[in-house]
């Protein structure tokens, strides 16, 4: 048992003061999940098959192209996901410098990468301002809709 009730109380108090509408905390076998304003999808999905990749539950991104990138917030920070199946390009053209690197600070709306769908270049932009903490896909790799591309620590 990794948490005492005292610790749980403290965590609850912290969560309550925060602005989140939902939270889910897992420590070993302990799971603590809270929500307000109506349960969204906090609980593991009712129907048998659970989606293998995270699906959008973030506020609609204002900066993305037509298909909204899936951008859940998880332990790794805010995520930007592929808006389409395609090929992931870190730079505007071969040989050029990448749009962003780990450690960079980005503005909301700033282009992070290109996902190429049969010659159609889709610019994928950050939907929050923050610091890039991880890039999950190698340059020129194939991605699917929803594949996590970047983690951003919001500032």
């Amino acid at each position, binding site marked *: 048992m990794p948490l005492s009730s005292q610790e749980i109380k403290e965590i609850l108090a912290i969560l309550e003061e925060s602005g989140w509408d939902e939270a889910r905390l897992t420590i070993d076998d302990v799971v603590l999940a809270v929500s307000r304003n109506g349960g969204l999808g906090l609980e593991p999905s009712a129907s048998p098959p659970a989606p293998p*990749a995270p699906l959008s539950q973030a506020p609609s991104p204002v900066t993305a192209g*037509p298909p*909204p990138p899936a951008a859940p917030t998880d332990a790794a920070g805010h995520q930007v996901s592929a808006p*389409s*199946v395609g090929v992931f390009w870190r730079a505007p053209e071969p040989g050029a410098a990448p749009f962003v690197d780990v450690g960079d600070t980005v503005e909301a709306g700033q282009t992070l990468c290109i996902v190429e769908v*049969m010659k159609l270049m889709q610019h994928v932009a950050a939907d929050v301002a923050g610091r890039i903490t991880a890039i999950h896909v190698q340059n020129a790799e*194939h991605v699917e*809709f929803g594949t996590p591309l970047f983690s951003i620590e919001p500032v």
Partner: protein
Amino acid sequence: MRRILIANRGEIAVRVARACFDAGLESVVSVSAADRDGLAALVADRAVTIGPPPAIESYLSIDRVLAAAKAADCDALHPGYGFLSERPELAEACEEEGIVFVGPPAAVMRRAGDKMSARAVAAENGIPTGAGSDGLESLEQAVEAAERTGYPLMLKASAGGGGRGMAIVNEASDLEQRFHSARSEAQQAFGDGRVYLERYVGRARHVEVQVLADTHGNVIHLGERDCSCQRRYQKLVEEAPAAGLDAALAEGIRNAAVELARALSYVGAGTVEFLVDTERGDFTFLEVNARVQVEHPVSEAVTGVDIVGEQLRIAAGERLSIEQDEVRIEGHAVECRINAEDPRNGFLPSPGTVTRWAPPNASRIRVDSHVQPGYEVSPYYDSLLAKVIAWGPDRAAALQLMRRGLDRFKVEGVRTTVPLLADIVAAPAFAAAPVTTRWLETEFLEEWNARPTEG
């Protein structure tokens, strides 16, 4: 051919994956996020998520479907039916990318798919196309053609299907208004406002012939299907063969279909649709569907030919596995389309979660479906849940088996067309005689809607 991208969803994606497995091919299904955990994704060897649930950003995107084929290193693509299956642009794009398209080449698809060009080819080959017109450019042309054809007549969209852009014109005074509205409807639905007109047949049967054509010049038919049991041009019940059709008439229709396929240099599985005038006992060509059809299993049931398997053979450049004189039509098969719709409430779609799902379990009943308990009927796609196909040594036996099967079909969580279909196949009028295309709407449904509902 080694690995097929299945650019579709639902029961046909499951059906094509099965055919791939049977043929020793690998299958990859391109899915929207809504179908990521669906049965098609499970039975295929791999699933690639190409976009969000709306079809326009997933199943209707040629670019995304092709990107999935490339991502998964597929060397062929099966488009199923609906969605992109009759888009020559997809066939062309496949060709450019070196991917085998399981279907006719783009040029053939264009010729066959455009109703007016197909009518022209049919007419050239002596196949009756009905007293009709070419594409009508103006009201004047329409008035002239209408006088030549006589009333009642029917306006149809040249590029169309599914009832959009269609209108019955009973008398001359209605023509102007109907002509303009059909044109604008066609323009809206298909981006192509051309319409034509033809004689309207009041007591008509919808009879279609399944053809198969390989790249070696072999063209065969698998007999005809009757799909007259329609509501708003949507088929509910399909059968093979067409019951009560005069033998010479049936022979004429089958031969016309093969001749037309030859004349079009057709390649692949296709369907040639005809309208049979039950009063005059003649037939006219309607259109060609250049893809596998929803109702293909009834032809499979009476001939034993695996139509999707033949599609794969043809695409691989092989010869058809069967010749015309080996095709035998045995017994009778009926298919019912189980939709998540409420027939008691204007056929309103019934989205929701399927909590129980137990289709009939019988030797002579085939069920093609992608549904399992827990399946979410999505509002994004059409409402087909399953096709139930019953085979019997004769039509009465097939109908009786279908009735017994539908009576035992247990679905909970969404409303379906099962109870309606069970009543249709048990209706004395349906059992006694072949029905016409207007029977369901104008006769059966009126009476059925007045029946007291149970439960």
